[in-house]
């Protein structure tokens, strides 16, 4: 299906947000996900979050340092 990822069109075979992150090699435990206007953090319920055709997904990586 086609989604909008980081503002650009993206083709993916993933059916959930968690699967999409795995496809991208992103660690869900340290990512903030903005999906359909909602914010999800630290892999919370990403497994159960279905990807939908045309949906907008933004992912922000959290890296160490402070």
């Amino acid at each position, binding site marked *: 299906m086609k989604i909008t990822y980081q503002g650009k069109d993206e083709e993916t075979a993933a059916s959930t947000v968690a699967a999409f992150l795995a496809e991208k090699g992103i660690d869900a435990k340290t990512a903030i996900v903005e999906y359909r206007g909602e914010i999800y953090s630290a892999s919370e319920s990403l497994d159960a979050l279905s990807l939908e055709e045309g949906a907008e997904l933004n992912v922000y990586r959290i890296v*160490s*340092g402070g």
Partner: protein
Amino acid sequence: MGANAYLSERERQILESAIVGIAGAGGLGSNCAMHLVRAGVKKLVIADFDTVNESNLNRQFFFRDQLGRKKVDALAENLRRIEPDLELDIHDTRLCPENIGEIFSGCTAFVEALDSADAKAMFLKAVLPFGKPTVATSGLAGWGKSGGIVQRRIGKNLILAGDMESNVGDNSFPFSPRVGIAAAMEANALVALLLGEEP
């Protein structure tokens, strides 16, 4: 407060009544707290388990004569040298999912100022459901590339500052200028969010 000369009565009241919870009193937390106090914030809840050590002096708002002191105690002392009548609620403790809610439940805004990616994610997971203005960072190691540190607004209440890639790790370290930019960016965005303006 020193900031009052530059604030309207409305702005002063908003900033003085805000209760800002700061998770971590290291490079980000100590400098962000300093900026918030100078900007007119009066009430802070600060948590950190660590003590001031020599390497911290490369970027953190502490002084050589405070080596060995608890960071929360030393930071409270330094902030009160700027504004003596602050209301500080300090917690000498390591944050975990079980105590974050209890420590920060009365806060009206949050600053993520922790070290590790796991701790940052843990804190955000705990406080984002409160729906309050929240600032966090990701990516500030090294030097140069000041313009690479940007802020992103995620949803209505969250601002994430950093370059999203400069990880502090085995061969990559935090230095005062770049950590300082991120800490100032957190404080700057939070002041705007508290005042109901575009961060």
